[in-house]
C-alpha cells in the first residue's frame, strides 16, 4: 500500500536512525576528519614546545618527538632568555604591551567616534572643494620647493586660500560625496599592501627623528587599524535604533549625555570585541615594526626573527621560547573574543 522501502544494512549505516540524529557512518567519518585536522593544527604547537626544551644537538640530530624518551629536555634556552639575556626579552615584551595597548586605545576612541558620526550625520562634502584642497596643497609644496619659502608659511597660506575659495566659489559645485564614499575611502587605505607604504612612512619618521621610538609605532599602528575600527563600529552604531536617541532627546538629554548614557553602553559589546581584534592585530604586527624599530622600540615579533641572526645560525630553541611567550596572551584574547562572538553579543545585541 505505502511506498516506503525497508531499511537495508547500508541504510542503517549511512542513514540517520531518527530525526535530529547523525548516521553512525557519517558520525565516524566526521569525527575522523576532525581528529585528523586537530592533529594537523596542534602538532606545530607541540613541536614548538618541545623544541624550546631541546639542546642544539637534539635539534640538529633529530627529529626527536617525545621528551624523556627520544631526548632529555633542557631548560637552557629558557635560562638564556630569562636569566642571562632577560633585559632584552623584557624590553621587547614591555614594548609590545605598551605599543599594542596605547595604539588600540587611541584607535578605538578615535575610530568609534568617527563611526558614530558616519552612522548618524549625513555628510555632503563637495567634490570640487576636495579637489581645491589638493590643488592648494600642491601649490604650497611647489612654492616651498621652487622658491625656498618656509613650508609652514606656504601650507598656512594654502589653507587660507582654500578656505576663501570654499566660501566664495564652493557653493557653485554640484557634485558631492556621501557617507558611503567616506567609508570606502577609509577601507581603501587598507587595500594597499603595507609593504608599499613602508618607505614613505619610514622617511616621514626619519625626518621627524622619531625612528625606533614608541610613538612612531603607536601612531603607525593606530592609523593602520583605524579603518577596521571604523568599519566594525559603523555597523554596530547603525544597529542601535535611532528612536532611542530621539527618545533621550525628548526626555531632555543633551547630545553628549545621550552618547554617554545611551549609545555607549549599548555599543559596549561591539567595542569590546573590536578592541580585542585590534589589540591582536597590533600585537602580531611585524612588517612595519621591522622598518620602524631597531632596538629601543623592538617588539616581540622582531625578537622572534632576531633569533635567526649571526654566525651561530638559527637559534631554534630560543626562537621557540619567544614564540611561546608571544602567543600566550593572544590565545587568551582569542578565547575571550570567541566568547563574545558565540554569545551573539556582536549581533543584534540591542534587541529587546
Amino acid at each position, binding site marked *: 500500500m505505502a511506498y516506503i522501502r525497508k531499511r537495508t544494512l547500508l541504510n542503517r549505516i549511512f542513514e540517520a536512525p531518527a530525526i535530529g540524529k547523525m548516521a553512525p557512518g557519517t558520525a565516524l567519518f566526521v569525527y575522523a576528519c576532525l581528529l585528523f585536522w586537530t592533529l594537523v593544527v596542534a602538532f606545530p604547537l607541540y613541536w614548538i614546545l618541545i623544541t624550546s626544551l631541546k639542546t642544539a644537538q637534539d635539534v640538529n640530530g633529530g627529529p626527536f618527538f617525545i621528551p624523556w624518551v627520544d631526548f632529555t629536555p633542557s631548560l637552557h634556552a629558557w635560562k638564556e632568555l630569562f636569566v642571562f639575556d632577560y633585559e632584552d626579552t623584557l624590553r621587547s615584551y614591555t614594548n609590545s604591551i605598551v605599543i599594542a595597548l596605547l595604539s588600540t586605545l587611541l584607535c578605538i576612541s578615535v575610530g568609534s567616534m568617527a563611526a558614530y558620526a558616519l552612522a548618524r550625520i549625513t555628510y555632503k562634502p563637495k567634490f570640487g572643494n576636495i579637489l581645491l584642497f589638493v590643488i592648494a596643497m600642491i601649490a604650497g609644496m611647489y612654492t616651498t620647493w621652487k622658491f625656498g619659502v618656509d613650508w609652514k608659511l606656504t601650507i598656512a597660506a594654502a589653507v587660507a586660500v582654500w578656505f576663501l575659495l570654499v566660501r566664495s566659489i564652493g557653493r557653485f559645485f554640484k557634485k558631492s560625496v556621501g557617507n558611503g564614499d567616506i567609508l570606502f575611502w577609509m577601507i581603501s587605505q587598507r587595500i594597499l599592501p603595507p609593504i608599499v607604504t613602508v618607505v614613505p612612512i619610514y622617511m616621514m619618521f626619519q625626518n621627524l627623528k622619531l625612528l625606533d621610538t614608541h610613538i612612531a609605532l603607536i601612531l603607525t599602528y593606530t592609523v593602520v587599524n583605524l579603518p577596521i575600527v571604523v568599519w566594525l563600529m559603523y555597523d554596530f552604531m547603525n544597529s542601535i535604533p535611532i*528612536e532611542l536617541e530621539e527618545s533621550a532627546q*525628548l*526626555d*531632555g*538629554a543633551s547630545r553628549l549625555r545621550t552618547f554617554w548614557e545611551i549609545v555607549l553602553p549599548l555599543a559596549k559589546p561591539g567595542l569590546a570585541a573590536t578592541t580585542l581584534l585590534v589589540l591582536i592585530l597590533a600585537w602580531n604586527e611585524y612588517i612595519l615594526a621591522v622598518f620602524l624599530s631597531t632596538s629601543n622600540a623592538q617588539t616581540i615579533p622582531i625578537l622572534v626573527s632576531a633569533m635567526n641572526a649571526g654566525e651561530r645560525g638559527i637559534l631554534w630553541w630560543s626562537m621557540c621560547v619567544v614564540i611561546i611567550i608571544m602567543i600566550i596572551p593572544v590565545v587568551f584574547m582569542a578565547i575571550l573574543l570567541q566568547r563574545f562572538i558565540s554569545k551573539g553579543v556582536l549581533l543584534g545585541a540591542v534587541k529587546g
Partner: protein
Amino acid sequence: MQSSATEDAKRLSLRNLNKSFGSVHVVKDLSIEIEPGEFLVLLGPSGCGKTTALRMVAGLETVDSGSIELGGEDITNALPKYRDIAMVFQSYALYPHKTVAENMGFPLKVAGVARADVDAAVRETAAQVHMIEYLDRFPRELSGGQRQRVALGRAMIRRPYAFLMDEPLSNLDAKLRGHMRAELKHMQHDLGTTTIYVTHDQIEAMTLAHRVAIMNEGVLQQLGTPREVYDQPATLFVAGFMGSPPMNFVHGSIDNQRFTSTNVNLPVSANGSSVKSVLGFRPEDSEVGVAGSGLFDATVFASEQTGEYTLVTVVLGDDTMTIKMPRDFDAAIHSSVSVSFPTDKGFLFDKVSGNRESIHLVGG
C-alpha cells in the same frame, strides 16, 4: 474634555506646515488648532505624512515652512527638550540597558531632580500604569503590553504639556490592543493631557479621538469629531477610508438632474460641479431584496456569514459593493437582487475633485 490640570489653557497650533524629503512633498500646508486637553488623532494610510507631522511637533524633524505655536509661543525651531512634550514611539524606544525604574526615571534624572524625588515619582507613576512589581526588570524581560506601559509611564512622569503617540498599539496582538485602547482612553481622560495620536487604524481613531484629522498624500482631508467624519465625509477619500467594510461606490455621471450608471438611473436635486460623479452609501445603511424592488439591481458575487452578520457582495458593472445583512440572511451566488438604501444615506461626490457635492438624491 477640558480639565483643571491645564489652568493656563494653552493651545497647540500648527500653522501651514510644509515638509519635503528631496522632491517628495510629504506634508502640505497642514493647519490644525489643538485645544487644551484634546485627544486628536491623525489618521491616514502609510506614507500620508502623519508621522512626519508628529515628528515636526516633537522637534525631531525641521519644518520647511509654517510654524508651531504652544500657548502663543513659537516653538517651531526649539530643541525637543524645551518643548515640554513627551513622545511614545511605535517601537517604545525603551533603553535596553536600563531597568523599568531607570527608564521611567530618566527624564527626571536628566532634569536634575533629586534622587529621592525621582524614586517617589517613579513609584507613583508605576502604580498608575500597573507596573509597580516590575520596577527592577529589564525591558527584554517584559511582554509587549508591559513595555507599552513603561513607555507610557516614562512619558507621563514629567507631566508634559502634551503626549505624542506614534502608532503605540500597532506592535500588540489584537486582543491586547483592544484592552490597551480602553486603558489609554481612560488614562488620557483622567490626566487631561493634550494628546496627538498617529494611527492608520480607523477603529482606534473612532474610539479614542475627540477629533480626527484624516490625511492623504500630505493633505488634510477632513478635521472633525469621529461622528462627523463618519456621517458627513468631506471627500471620496475619507468616505472610502472610514468604516469596515468601507463605503460602497457606484461610478457614474450626473446629467439632467439624474445620476446614471449601469442599471442605475436616479433623480438628484441638482446637477453637480462636474458630470463624472460617484454615488456612495454605507454597507450597514443598505439592504438587498427581491430584484426590481430597490433603487437598482445587481448580481450576487458572494454571501459570507460572519456569525454576527452576513456580508453580501454584489457586482454592478465595474463596481463591487458590500451590503451588511442580518445574520440569518443568505443569497444565492449569481442570483439577481435589488439594492436599496434611504436616499438621505446616499452621498454624491465629484469624481474629478473628490469633494462631496452639496446635492443629494431625491426621495423616490
